[in-house]
């Protein structure tokens, strides 16, 4: 479904993503982990069209999408969440998701249909479906859910979820992980899931890729990652300092 090859992103003289390659099968849930600053969010920005690759190719269903505009990539069927939630504060919760549903479909659906899709997405992530809820009163966990709901409302075939567990407590993390699992199993959406901690993610993903300083240092089953010397060094080494 997705084929990334030799992907690079340079900020000035700094290589944030360095020759990253991987393939993704339809229906898979892939974990993308690595310490802070290892280039995970940048990789998402490149795939979702928020940044232009410095080199390399990104093919989605066989079509080159590297460098396309973000809205065009959304229309092709890739949805993303932002690590730090970016709600539209002037819009209500429902409007936030409705506008995503409408424009995600390229404006080719009615407003009523957009709202229906929005409601379905809100239900899916466990947010209230009410037109009076504003985003101002929402806590960190709820905002993370809003990011997911907004991405889902665009009806993606591939979902890029950036640190959906960040800043959540234990119980909230468990539920968020269940939601992602559900999205894959019930909606059949392929997922790349980024976290900087291993935790719950390792239980759910089919496969994991580990980034360090913009380079892919591991790819394989979660169980192998836990015992891989390079991965443990990156993780435990970092944890001790």
């Amino acid at each position, binding site marked *: 479904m997705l084929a990334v090859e030799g992907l690079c992103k340079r900020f000035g003289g700094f290589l944030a993503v360095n020759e990253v390659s991987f393939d993704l099968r339809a229906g898979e849930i892939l974990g993308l982990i690595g310490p802070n600053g290892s280039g995970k969010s940048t990789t998402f920005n490149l795939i979702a069209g928020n940044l232009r690759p410095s080199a390399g190719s990104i093919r989605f269903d066989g079509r080159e999408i590297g460098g396309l505009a973000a809205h065009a990539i*959304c229309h092709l069927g890739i949805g993303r969440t932002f690590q730090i939630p*970016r709600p539209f504060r*002037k819009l209500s919760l429902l409007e*936030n998701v409705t506008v995503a549903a*409408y424009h995600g479909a390229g404006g080719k659906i009615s407003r009523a249909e957009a709202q229906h899709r929005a409601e379905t997405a809100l239900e899916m992530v466990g947010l209230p479906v009410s037109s009076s809820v504003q985003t101002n009163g929402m806590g960190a966990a709820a905002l993370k859910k809003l990011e997911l709901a907004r991405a889902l409302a665009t009806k993606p075939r591939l979902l890029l979820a950036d640190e959906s567990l960040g800043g959540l407590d234990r119980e909230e993390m468990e539920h968020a992980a269940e939601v992602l699992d559900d999205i894959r199993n019930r909606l059949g959406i392929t997922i790349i899931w980024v976290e900087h901690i291993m935790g719950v993610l390792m239980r759910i993903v089919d496969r994991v890729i580990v980034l360090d300083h913009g380079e892919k240092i591991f790819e394989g089953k979660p169980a192998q990652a836990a015992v891989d010397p390079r991965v443990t060094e990156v993780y435990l080494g970092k944890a001790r300092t």
Partner: protein
Amino acid sequence: MSTTRLAWAAGLAILIVLPFITPTYFLHLLIQILIWAFIYTAWSLMGRFGFVSFGHGAFMGIGAYVPALLWSYWNVTPWLGIPLGVVLSGLLAIIIGYPCFRRRVIGHYFALVTLALSQVVLLSLIAAREITGGSLGFTQRAVGYSWYALQFPEKSYFYAIAVLLWLFGLAVWRRIDRGIGREALEAISEDEEAAASVGIDVLREKMRVTVISAALTALGGAVYGQYVMYLNPETVSGIAVSLQIVFAAIAGGVYSLFGPSVGALLTLSLTEGLRVWFGANFVGAANTIYGILLVLCIIFMPQGIVGTLQRPKGSSARRDIAWNWRKG
């Protein structure tokens, strides 16, 4: 619901009756208020989303001058001249807007680019003094009552045109406010990147509202030109006119349907009142007082006059639910 209907009906009834009971002088003032109200409303279509244009003087100037010059020199009916001016303004909006939006020129920079645009059109009008009369202005060729020339010495005709124009402006404002267009533009005004990521074509949405706003402003300028017959670069284009539009619209309130219109009503009555009151006694005093009042208005009522008056009602309707997510 029915009270709003009633209010609309009453308002319209007053507008219909007014020309029969008001002296000509007030009718003249009213026509100008309605035309400017339409232009301010057109500006607020963009302004309310934070796209603050200081270039609307340019669109108004083109809208006013194109049909006037075509009529006066080449006998082209304003029925063709006006659409042409509107289209030219729309094209100019595209020429200026496209590179700005493409390169994400926003905030102060956008204000500066559009400010320059105002001045370019003003200076061009002055420079083409052979046909425009330069800074002395020029008077359109008058033929008396004529639908073909869109000239009516009788004020009631222009009053009717101005009312229809104004209602048309409100209808456009309403349509954008009610439709999914507003949601997309609100999203864009807050976070272009996040908006693009949910499939919003940021460039297209911004271009669309800009072209609509510019075209309507040109239409307003055209009707204004047909009405006053005498055109001067300083009164229909340039930075001064752009500033007048920005201030009055913001003072009235860009977030509400009637905000820009109230801005027009108050600023024009105020200018006129001060002018009459001070007469020729203290030249400049009227303008100074006007300026001070505007500044106070903008500082103490950032939502505009109408927005501030509506506040208590609005805030209770928009309940902010402090709300904590938990499973089950």
